[in-house]
C-alpha cells in the first residue's frame, strides 16, 4: 500500500506544478503545457512498450512522430483538385511502381538459386526499376509542383475530419516500424538503434524536401481542428457563448482560448486513459508475462518455444504506432505541419528521458515522466533566459553577457543529458519502479 500512496503523492506533486504555473503565470500557459505533456506521455507510453516491455532501443522516435504529422496532412488537408488532376495519379503510380520493383526484386531473390546469376538479375531489376520509377515519378512531381506554388504546389489531402487522421498516423508509423524491424531485429541489439537513427533522419528529410507531398519547408498551415474543438474566433462570434461567459464575469477572448484548450485536454486525456487501460491489461496478461520473460532472458524464452524475433517485431510495431498516434494528435492540435520542428533532441531524446526517469517498464511511470519532463522542458524555455538574466545582471552589457544569455537554451541539452546519466546510474528503476 505504501507504494500506491507514494505514487499518488508523486502525481499530486506534478499536478501542483501545473496549478502553480496557472496561478503565477497564466492558466492558458499551464493548459498548453499540460496538453503537450499529455501528448508526450502518450509518446512515452509507446517508447515504454518498446524499451520497458521488450528491451528494444530505438533512436528513431522522431520519425514516428513526423509520420503521424504527415498523416494529418494526407487525411485532413483540403484537396487541391487541379494539382491532383495535373499529376497526382502519375506521382502515386510512380510510388506504386517503386514498391512493385522492390517486391519483384525480393521475389526474384527468393525464387532463384544463390549464385552470380541471381545477383545480376536482382541488380538489373533494381537498377532498371529505379530509372523507370524516377521517369514516371519526376514527371508527376513536376506537374504537381507547377500548380500555383505560392499557395499549393502539393497534391493536397482528402479533406476528411482530423480525428480520422489519428489512427492513420498510427498506421503510417506502424508500417515504417514493420519495414525497419523486419531488417534490423534479430541481429545485434545495436543495429536497431543505428537503423532507426537513419530511418528517422530520412523521414524528416522527405518531409522537408518533397514539396509535392506536404509543401516541404514551405509548411502547411490551417489544417482543420479535430471534432468537437471549435475555432476561437467562432466562439467569440457566438452570442450564446459570449453571453454565458460575461454572466460569469470572464472576458470572452481569454475564455474562448481556455475552453479550446480544455476541450483538447479532454480529448487527449481520453485517449491517454484508454491507452493506459489497454497497456495495463496487456502487461498483466499472458502476453505481457511472455514479453517480460523474453526481455529478461531471450535464450530461456526461445527454449520455451517463443519466437523472440517475431515478438520483438510485434511490440516494436505497436510501440511505434502509439508514438505515431501522438504525433498525429500533436499536428492536428497545432493545425500546421512544420518539418523543421522535428528535432531528434525534442522528440527522441526527451521522450527517452521521460521513460527512464518515470520508470522503465511501468506505464504509470511513463505518464508521470511525460507530464513532469513535459512541464520542465517548456518551463525551462521561459525560465532559463530569465534566470541567466538575473545571474548576469551585475555584468556590464557586452559580448560575454549576450553569449551567456543565449547559452541558456543550450543548457537544456546538458541538463537533460546529465539527468539521464544520473538516473541510469543511481536510480535505474526510475520514479515509479516496475513491480
Amino acid at each position: 500500500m505504501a507504494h500506491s500512496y507514494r505514487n499518488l503523492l508523486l502525481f499530486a506533486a506534478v499536478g501542483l506544478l501545473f496549478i502553480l504555473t496557472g496561478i503565477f503565470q497564466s492558466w492558458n500557459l499551464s493548459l498548453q503545457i499540460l496538453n503537450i505533456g499529455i501528448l508526450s506521455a502518450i509518446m512515452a507510453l509507446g517508447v515504454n512498450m518498446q524499451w520497458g516491455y521488450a528491451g528494444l532501443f530505438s533512436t528513431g522516435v522522431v520519425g514516428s512522430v513526423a509520420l503521424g504529422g504527415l498523416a494529418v496532412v494526407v487525411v485532413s488537408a483540403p484537396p487541391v483538385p487541379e494539382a491532383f488532376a495535373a499529376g497526382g495519379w502519375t506521382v502515386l503510380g510512380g510510388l506504386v511502381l517503386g514498391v512493385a520493383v522492390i517486391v519483384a526484386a525480393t521475389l526474384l531473390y527468393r525464387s532463384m538459386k544463390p549464385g552470380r546469376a541471381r545477383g545480376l538479375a536482382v541488380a538489373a531489376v533494381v537498377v532498371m526499376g529505379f530509372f523507370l520509377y524516377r521517369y514516371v515519378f519526376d514527371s508527376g512531381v513536376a506537374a504537381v509542383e507547377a500548380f500555383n506554388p505560392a499557395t499549393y504546389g502539393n497534391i493536397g489531402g482528402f479533406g476528411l475530419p482530423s480525428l480520422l487522421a489519428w489512427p492513420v498516423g498510427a498506421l503510417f508509423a506502424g508500417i515504417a516500424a514493420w519495414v525497419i524491424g523486419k531488417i534490423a531485429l534479430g541481429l545485434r541489439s545495436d543495429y536497431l538503434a543505428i537503423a532507426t537513427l537513419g530511418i528517422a533522419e530520412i523521414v524528416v528529410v522527405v518531409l522537408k524536401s518533397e514539396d509535392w507531398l506536404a509543401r516541404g519547408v514551405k509548411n502547411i498551415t490551417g489544417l482543420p481542428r479535430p471534432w468537437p474543438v471549435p475555432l476561437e474566433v467562432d466562439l467569440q462570434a457566438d452570442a450564446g457563448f459570449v453571453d454565458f461567459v460575461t454572466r460569469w464575469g470572464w472576458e470572452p477572448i481569454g475564455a474562448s482560448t481556455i475552453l479550446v484548450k480544455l476541450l483538447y485536454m479532454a480529448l487527449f486525456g481520453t485517449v491517454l486513459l484508454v491507452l493506459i487501460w489497454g497497456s495495463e491489461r496487456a502487461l498483466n496478461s499472458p502476453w505481457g508475462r511472455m514479453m517480460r520473460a523474453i526481455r529478461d532472458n531471450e535464450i530461456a524464452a526461445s527454449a520455451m518455444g517463443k519466437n523472440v524475433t517475431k515478438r520483438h517485431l510485434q511490440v516494436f510495431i505497436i510501440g511505434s504506432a502509439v508514438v505515431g498516434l501522438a504525433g498525429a494528435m500533436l499536428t492536428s492540435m497545432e493545425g500546421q505541419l512544420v518539418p523543421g520542428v522535428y528535432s531528434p533532441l525534442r522528440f527522441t531524446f526527451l521522450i527517452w528521458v521521460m521513460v527512464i526517469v518515470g520508470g522503465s517498464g511501468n506505464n504509470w511511470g511513463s505518464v508521470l515522466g511525460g507530464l513532469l519532463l513535459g512541464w520542465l522542458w517548456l518551463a525551462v524555455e521561459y525560465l532559463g533566459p530569465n534566470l541567466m538574466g538575473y545571474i548576469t545582471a551585475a555584468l556590464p552589457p557586452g559580448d560575454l553577457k549576450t553569449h551567456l544569455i543565449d547559452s541558456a537554451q543550450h543548457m537544456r541539452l546538458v541538463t537533460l543529458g546529465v539527468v539521464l546519466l544520473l538516473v541510469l546510474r543511481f536510480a535505474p528503476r526510475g520514479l515509479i519502479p516496475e513491480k
Partner: protein
Amino acid sequence: MDILNAFVALLNFVIVPGVAYGSQLALGALGVTLIFAVLRFSNFAHGDTMAFGTAIVIMVTWLLQSWGISFGPLPTALLALPFGIAVTAGLVLLTDRGIYRFYRRQKAAPIILVIVSAGVMFVMNGLVRLIIGVEERNFTDGERFLLDAQTFKAATGLAEPLVIKTTVAVTVVIAVLCVAALFWFLQNTRTGKSMRAFSDNEDLALLSGINPDRVVQVTWIIAAALAVIAGTLYGLDKSFRPFVYFQLLLPVFAAAVVGGLGSPLGAIAGGYIVALSEVVLTYAWKKVATYVLPDSMAPDGLMQLLSTDYKVAVSFAILIIVLLFMPTGIFKGK
C-alpha cells in the same frame, strides 16, 4: 580530347572529393570500430566527440592566429591539433572513469552502454554549443589550392579544370599517416597486441595478465585522437557546424558496419565505400555525359540519381543492404 575532359571532370567532381570525404569517414569509423572491438558497444557519442575536439581545435587556432603564428602554406589548425587531441582525450577518459567504468564492472548489457553513450552524446553536444555556438565556422587558412584551375588548364590545354584544394591533400596525407601509425601500433607494440588480444577473447586476455583498465584507457585515447583528427579534417575541408557533426554519425556508423564492426581494416574500406557511393549517387552526371556521348544523345536533365538532400539515404541504404545480406560486414566483424 572529349574522353580526357570527361575523365578530368570525373576526377575533379567525384573521385577527389569522394576520396577526401572517404578518408574523413574512415578515420571516424576507425574510432567507432576500435571502441566496439574493445568495449563492445556502438558509441553514439562519437559524432559529438568529433565536434567537441574540432571546437577546441578552432579555439586554439584563433588563439594562435591572434598571436600571429601560422603554419606557412598549411592550415594553422594542424598546429592546434595536438591541443585538441589532448583536451578531448582528457574529457573522454573522464567520461570513462565517471560513467562507462561503472557499467563495465557491472557487466551491463551492451544496449545499456548504448543508451548511456546517447546521454553522453547530448551532454557533449550541449557543451559544444555552449563553447562555440551553433553558427557555421570556417577556420581554414594558409594556401587555398595545391593545384588551381588556371594552372591545370594552362599546363594541359584541357577545357575541364582539375582543382586540388590544400585541405584535400592534407586530409589524404594525414589519413594515410594515421592509418599506418595505427596498424603499426596494433601489430608491433605490446599495448597494441594486448588490445587485439582483449578484443579477440576477453577472458583469455585477462588470464594472461593483461591489465584491462590500461587497454580500455589506451583505446579511448586512440579513439579520441582519431575523432579529433577526422573532425578537424572534415571542418577544414567543408566547415564546422555542431548539427552537421551530429548527422555525420550515420555515415560513420554505416562505414563501420559495412566493413564489419570491430575490424579496423573494414572501417577504412567502409569509409571509402560510403563516401564514394554518396558522391556518385548525388553528383549531376550531365557534364561527364555531354563529353562522352555523341551530340545527338546529349542529356537534357541534370542526370542526378538522387538530390543532395538525400545524402543520408545513401548511407542508410548501404547499411540496410549490409544488414540484409551480410550482417557481419565485408571483413567479418562481430
